[in-house]
Structures are given as C-alpha cells and as structure tokens.
C-alpha cells in the first residue's frame, strides 16, 4: 500500500529523517514510536505532502505523493489542531469534511451514530465551536472526522494524548477494528508504548530520523521496547 524509497528530509543540511526502505501492506495497523524529535511528525507530514522530501519519495497505491494528488481521496489524517476549523461546530465540521469527501449528510450522520459512546455526550449538540472545546474533545472530533468517507489510509499523530482513560480504551477498539475488519491501513504514532503495542501489528522505532527497530508485535514486544527506551 505504502512504499517508502530513499526518503530523507533535512533542514539547512541537518537531517531530521532518513528512511531507506519501508513497506506498509494494505490493512496493516502500523505503530510509530520514538522520542521527541525522532521524526514521527515529519514522516507523517511527508505522507500528506505537507512538506517536501529532500531526497526520495513515498508511493501510496503506486501514486507518488509529491507528484500527484490522486492519493487524497483515499487518505485521511488527524495530525493536530491545524486540522480543525475553530469557528465551526463539531456537526458543521463533520458535514464540511463529508462534503469534501463526497459524503452527504445522511452518510455522515450514520457514521457519527456508531461513535456516540466515543463522544460520550460531549461533542454533538453542545452549542460550542470547536475552538472552545477542550483539547481532548477537539481530538475526538479530529479523529472521527478522519474516518469520514471510507478512507483506505488513516494517519493519526499521537491520538491517545489528552484523551481520558475511557476514551483511550474506546479508541483502541476503533483502531483495531479499522485494520482487522475493514482492511484500512492505519498509521499511528505514540509516546505511550503500552497503547501502541496494543493496537499495532507492527511497530517501528525511529531515532534521530532513522529506523532502528522494526518489530512484529508479540507478547514480548512491550518488554523489548521498554528495555530499549530505558536502557540505551
């Protein structure tokens, strides 16, 4: 589904990301971990063509991301608040994204219905604009909006941060279902090793922009990651 070849990104000749080869097959739930500055968000930004690669390229379904825009209809993401429109209510925002992704109101409503317990009564019909919601609630909106329009690739940067424990547990269920039942390729980054091992079939550890571990998740993975980040 996603193929990374000789990808690198440097700012003023100081490298921030350097991935020689990486293949993410369709329907895989893919976890990215690393300390601050490891290059996680840089990688996701490159995947969304928000920044330009210094060398190399990423292909999604054989479409080169920085050359064509044809990957956009089947890709969606929630990176940070810059993916929210502050002066809209959550409903308006969902419908707006829906319209951009070719979904009518009824389609969006059907989707939202499935996530009522995820919203926990704090999102819909609250008479609040997105800019006035708490960080956690904003994140809920952004994540669910990324599910609109049956995307085949979903990219979530730090989705667990700022969420309350109940919502974290529900989100983990959502992510697992997406990959296993609907064949969606889900890319998730996290600082929380426990969460990410729970939802991802495969975990890649980035350090200073390089892939230093590429693990298939097993019972031993969490221990291995903890040892890695504690010791070094």
């Amino acid at each position, binding site marked *: 589904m996603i193929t990374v070849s000789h990808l690198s990104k440097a700012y003023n000749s100081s490298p921030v990301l350097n991935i020689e080869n990486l293949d993410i097959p369709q329907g895989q739930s893919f976890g990215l971990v690393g300390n601050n500055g490891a290059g996680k968000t840089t990688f996701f930004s490159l995947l969304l063509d928000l920044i330009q690669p210094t060398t190399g390229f990423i292909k999604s379904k054989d479409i080169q991301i920085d050359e064509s825009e044809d990957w956009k209809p089947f890709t969606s993401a929630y990176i940070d608040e810059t993916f929210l429109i502050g002066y809209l209510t959550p*409903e308006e925002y969902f419908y707006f994204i829906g319209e951009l992704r070719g979904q009518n109101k009824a389609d969006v409503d059907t989707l939202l219905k499935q996530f009522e317990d995820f919203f926990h009564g704090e999102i819909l019909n609250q008479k609040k604009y997105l800019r006035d919601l708490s960080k956690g609630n904003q994140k809920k909106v952004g994540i669910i909006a990324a599910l609109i329009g049956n995307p085949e690739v979903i990219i979530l940067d730090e989705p667990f941060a700022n969420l309350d424990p109940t919502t974290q547990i529900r989100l983990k269920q959502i992510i697992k279902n997406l990959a296993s039942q609907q064949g969606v390729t889900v890319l998730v980054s996290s600082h929380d090793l426990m969460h990410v091992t729970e939802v991802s079939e495969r975990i890649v550890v980035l350090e200073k922009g390089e892939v230093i571990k590429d693990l298939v998740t097993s019972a031993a993975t969490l221990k291995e990651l903890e040892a890695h980040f504690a010791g070094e």
Partner: protein
Amino acid sequence: MVFGALWMIASFLLMGFGVYFIIEEQFNMEPFQVVNQVLIYYMAFDLVFRYFLQKMPVLNIKTLMYLPIKRKTIVNFAIGKTMISFFNVLHAFFFIPFSIVLIMEGFPVLQVMAWNLGIVGWIYCNNFINIFVNNKDVVFFAVIGVIGAMIGLQYFGVFDITQLTYPVFNAFYAIPYLAFVPVFLAVFFYKMAFTFFKNNLYLDSGLSVKHDIAETQDYSWLNRFGSMSTFLKNDIKLLRRNKRSKTTLLISVLFIFYGLLFFTGSVEAYEGPFWRVFAGIFISGGFLFTFGQFVPSWDSAYYPLMMSQNIRYKEYIASKWYLMVIATIVSTIISVFYLYWGWQAYAAVVVGAIYNIGVNSHMVLWGGAYIKTPIDLTTSKKAFGDKQAFNAKTLLLTIPKLVLPMAIYAVGHFTLGEVFGFALVAIAGFTGFLFKNKVFNIIEKVYKSEKYKTLAAYKQNN
C-alpha cells in the same frame, strides 16, 4: 507594524507643525479656536481607534500569576503597560509641535502648558475607558452611532456640538488650574481599573475566556451553487463568527462613506476629475480589497487540513470570488445616495464596481496568493496597521488596481468627455471579466507551486 507606526508619527508631526498655518492661511480662522472645537471629534475617534487596535494587557497576565509576585504589582504592571502604549505616545507627536508653534506665535507659555496637561489627562481618560469597554460591542457601537449623529447634525446645521465642547477645551487654556480636572479624572479611572482588575484576577472570573453560544447552521439554500457551495457555506460562517473578519466587514462599510471626502469637495487635493474613479473604486470595493487581499490567509489556521483534503482549487477560489462580487454589488446599491452629488458621482461608483468585479477581483486574489502572513481570526486588533496590511508588495499591487482605472478614465475624459471616460473604465472591467477562467488557472498554479512555502509560513504563528 513599524511602517504603519512611522507613517502615523510622521503625519502627526507634520500636522502638529502645519495645522496652525493651514487654518490661518487657508481658512482665515483662528487656529487655536478651531483646534479646540475639533478636539471633541479627535478624542472620540481616538477612542474608536483604540477599541480596534489597542491590545489589552490581560492576555499575558496568566503566566505572571504562578510566579511569586504580589497581585498588586501584577495589576499595576498590566495597567501601567497600557499607559506607555503607542496610542498614548502618538498624540505627543501632534500636541508638542503644535504647542511649540503656539508659543512661537506669542501664546503664553504657562497657559499652553496647562492646556497640554488637560489634553494629556483627557487622553489617559480615554486609555482607561477603553480598558473598561474593551470587547463590549454594544458600548462601542453606541459611541460610533453618537459620533455619526453629531457629524450629521453639524453638517446639516441642526446642532453643533463643538459649540458646547469648545469652551471646555478652551478652559484648560483660559483658566489653567482647570487642567487638573481631567488629570484627576484619569487618576480616578486608574484607581477604578485597579480595583476592578484586582478583584477579578482569577482564572474563572476576569481572566476566563468567554465562549460564544454556537448554533449549527447549514445554509442548505446555498446548495444550488453546486459543489462550490461547500466552500461558500464555510466562508460565510468564517465571516460571521470571527472577530477579525467582522472588523473587516465593518471597515468595508466605512469605505462606502469614504467617497464623501471626494464628492462633497471637502478635500481640495481630490478635485481633479479622475479622482472620481479613485473614489468609485474604493466605495464599491471596500470588502473586495480588505477581504480579498488575504485569500487564502483567512484559512491559514487550518491550511494543513485543506491541503490534505481533495480540494477543488477552482471552487475554493470561486467561492471567495463570489463573496467579493456579491459584496461589491451590495456596496454599489447602498451607495445610491451619492446621486445627491450628481449623476457623475454615482456613475463613478458603478463603473468602479464593474472594474472591481472584472479586473480588481482577479488582481486581489492573485496578489493574495503570494501573501503568506497567517491571520489570527480570533482577534481584531491586527486588522490594519501592521505589516500584514501594509507591505511593499501590497502597495505595488495597488497600481493596476487604482492608478490604471484612473488613467483610463483620464484618457476618455480629456478626449471625448466624461461619458466616454466612464465607458472606457466599464469596458476595461468587462474585458477583464473575460479572463476569469484564465486567471483562476494561474492562481491555482500559484497555490500549488507555493504550497510548501505557504504551509511553512502559516505554521510560524500557529
């Protein structure tokens, strides 16, 4: 910011030195008396400008609260900071040179100084009043309404408020110790502001952020515009729900009245015939200029979202374009009152509107594609006067927008007469309209080629 501030300082200095002689020689009136009469409007407009532009100190208080600093000190610091603001200092650049001229012209030094003291007191009263009324739109619009009514009543000779206020300002000069009254008043306001802030220095009272009660609107009647309606609906919400854009709307309304300066003949420099077209362009195009020049910056806060979605750029641009066209037409209809100053005045507005729609709408959007200053929608304090509004590029771009139509009109006016001049400008407008798709294509290309740079620039402030 710096450019705007320097420009203000320079013009205040010039006025300060020049106004005495201008009034004396051009109008044959007593300068000091005229200034004292006009001062009430000066002070009123000062209040209005402050309301729009002066930043309130409360914003950075939160960080101080966790530090070991006495609450009293924090409040004094916050209020004190407003006192040294540019909006207070600026007036010195007018009143000091003006007073120097007064003294040179033989006015007694002590009395002139007392008059100055009175003015300083008054300006600081304004400063504190602004703190109280900050973000209270009702109060603000009431002030604007009163000013408008007073100007109207004076213009039509019904009632002249300056006759009432002139003695007040003159009294600071005539009876010097009266100048202490506004100073005491300012001190009193300071104390009031101090107690007010001190009692409200809590996160859940004075420092709490007010939340608007949101209503979901779907504007489904706009769906007839096809897939462009997605953006149109959003743009209307953008305009209605953000402080910055509301300020822009208000400014565009003010532009409608800008023409009064031209057609009533109150400014001598504007009497050449081609200035009509200049006025016409501004009257009908206030919104077009103030809104259009910041497309796509209006969407800067969520530009990464837009760029990762499958956006049809043409529809995105077209939506902004339609808004500008609609606003231009509405402004043109409202300005029908210019007929009072002759058909030429309104003809200038109408051909100005045609030129705006046909040519300037494209120019403005095209230019905006290169302007990469992010817009903070939540504050109105930066709507004009900082570098976002005034930079070399935007100034350069005004040439085809303003100078060209004036030149076209002049060509017609001085060959076959004014009707021909108006016709030429209108024809230029209609011709421009034919290039709409071509220009949209170019703008789309600019958006695409500048994408990474724009994203990076918007990120700076987010």
